[in-house]
């Protein structure tokens, strides 16, 4: 990826963003980062697991789209076959950035929208415009701003959620062995999920605390999401 640039209405006034879903726009993703705030929507379609960032060793949660690198089984015939697409996919080609501003002489950190200038979705002919011809953000751009805000807060909450899972020893690694109808076998390693035995043995006061934080909900959403592996398998077998 190229160095992101700060979005502005001068340099970027004529840009449009292609919102179509396709491999050529980078949608051939095996999985993407997700967070508890969107678990309810995500678990309706995708299995949710946990994984470590190879660069930091820190856990994050993911929504899974396939069984191997660059395989997104939801991408079919130029369409994404699910009613909900996780925000970290939909945000492309935008990123959240930070800049320091002086406000009444006090230095403040402000969140701003950054843009990956070489992203294939960016062009001047087709897709969603960012700015109106005579100035002002389009509703699309406002939506992007909201999305990035949601992601920002969602990831902070996600870290807290996962720290809680680790502290309670609720995360366990697992190996996903799948066998396709044609006899082909895949093994996926490096993923983690909720340890149901440990969960079942948690004392009432710990459960109450998890509930207050909204994490009990997220835990059960994660568990429920596992049934979506079946859907992934069906897609794969149908190929």
């Amino acid at each position, binding site marked *: 990826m190229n160095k992101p640039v700060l979005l502005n209405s001068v340099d970027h006034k004529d840009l449009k963003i292609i919102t179509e879903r396709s491999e050529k726009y980078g949608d051939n993703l095996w999985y993407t980062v997700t967070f508890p705030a969107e678990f309810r929507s995500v678990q309706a379609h995708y299995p949710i697991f946990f994984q470590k960032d190879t660069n930091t060793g820190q856990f994050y949660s993911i929504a899974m789209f396939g069984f191997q690198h660059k395989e997104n089984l939801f991408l079919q015939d130029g369409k994404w076959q699910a009613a909900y697409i996780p925000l970290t996919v939909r945000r492309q080609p935008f990123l959240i950035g930070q800049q320091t501003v002086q406000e009444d002489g006090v230095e403040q950190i402000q969140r701003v929208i950054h843009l990956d200038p070489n992203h294939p979705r960016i062009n001047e002919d087709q897709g969603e415009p960012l700015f109106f011809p005579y100035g002002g953000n389009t509703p699309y751009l406002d939506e992007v701003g909201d999305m990035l805000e949601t992601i920002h807060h969602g990831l902070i909450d996600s870290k807290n959620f996962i720290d809680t899972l680790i502290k309670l020893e609720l995360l366990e*690694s697992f190996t996903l062995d799948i066998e396709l109808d044609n006899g082909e076998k895949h093994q996926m390693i490096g993923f983690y999920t909720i340890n149901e035995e440990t969960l079942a043995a948690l004392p009432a006061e710990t459960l109450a605390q998890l509930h207050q934080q909204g994490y009990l909900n997220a835990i059960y959403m994660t568990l429920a999401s596992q049934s979506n592996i079946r859907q992934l398998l069906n897609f794969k077998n149908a190929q």
Partner: protein
Amino acid sequence: MAQAIQNIIIVGGGTAGWLTAGILAAEHNADNGKLSPSPKLNITLIESPDVPTIGVGEGTWPSMRTTLKNIGISETEFLLSCDASFKQGSRFINWTHAQKANGNSAEHYLHPFSLPIGTNELDLCPHWLAHREQVSFADAVGQQNQLSQLSLAPKQITTGEYQFQNNYGYHLNAGKFSQLLQQHCTEKLGVTHIQDHVTAIHKNDSGDISHLSTKQSGELSADFFVDCTGVKSLILGEQLNVPFICQKSVLFNDSALAVQVPYPSADTEIASCTHSTAQSNGWIWDIGLPTRRGVGHVYSSSHTDQAQAEQQLVEYLKPTVNIDVDNLEIRKLSIAPGHRQVCWKNNCMAVGMASGFIEPLEASALALVEWSANTLAQQLPANRQVMDIVSARVNKRFNQHWQQIIEFLKLHYVLSKRSDSDYWHDHRESCSIPESLQQQLKLWRTQAPSKHDIQHTDALFPAASFQFVLYGMGFQTLLPSQLKPSLQNRAQQLFTENIKRTQGLQQLLPTNRELLAKIAQYGLPKI
């Protein structure tokens, strides 16, 4: 009814004392590192505020990972608070031949911590012998010789605490390690810490230790005493009169000069193994911590004097430091090579230097501390009446361990072809070589060391250690007369797999410094 063993006093702090306290408490008073509501033992550690600890032992074995995990210390916390780094073995430099003054490159070999690939399946050593001209034993059966020369870490930032890609122990700051253990033992594991001077040690009529007199804390009695008083061996040696068995006739080194030196720059790589470079009358250890190096010259005072030893140490340091080597603060240490006849007598067990010490050639000191403390923790007799049964078998094992350590260390000298001093000649005099080692060497000329050469299952050094040293030093063993083709095929597969793994890990692994920086920023994942 016989009185249960409930009250234990450990005399002496330092790494030995605090490791013993931690291991005892973790075994009897805690579960998963958390203190039980009704601890079984009362563990007290008394140390004199006036007696400084030696604080040199800076290398551990992989067993320390298990020990720390059992005690309940987070690896991230340990690494950061003890200035620790990863140790994947020991590299022996110029041990076979002395380096010529005209500057031919140094010869070296690694004794790595990872066992040869496929160890659980078959012994690759006989299969390697036919290829000895093409590839070193360490490179044929493992990855650490290559990886450690690149200063690569044994794991990644995604590898959970205490887990690994390649087996490792640690290099650490011994003083900080004692502090961490002390803090953990007193705050988390309920160990009572008394800072006071022991003025007298008392025995009862049966010859057992009954109590201690102290300067300020009165009389302290206990059912069992652990002697961690260092070389003075105040209880086991002085009170219980257990004789000291001197081993200087086998391993001559009795002196050491230790120094700490800074890195030339903040991004100098941190070595992945202990470097041990042979000298004319001893050898120099070189241990890389994240913050500094610890270097020392171990030598035989019967063969050289302090001035010459110091000169050699300075010469060794010169090319790798950018400080004034003439004004180094060099500490002189004396080593009495040997051990007590037994480590456990009556109701007292000695742990650490109180039970014995030998030159740190294979960093066995802390490993023996762990063995002693684990043995005591796991075999602690229920009462005094059955104690002698346990101590008899512990003492037997203690002596087996010492015999193995001495013979294994001696092996490094016996195999040397150096002829630059009497020191090396004397080491090869048969009167200095234990009889059983001489016999083993005779056997190994016809067959590679195997598990059948190892006396018992929990020996400190496995057959692989003997293989790494023998073949690292160019020892010649006859080629096996027969190898089953099916096993040969499997051996070839393993050799190929090892090459692939070495290349793969070379791409994957960060350097020690990179990994430690990431650990400081993010911590290692718990799982």
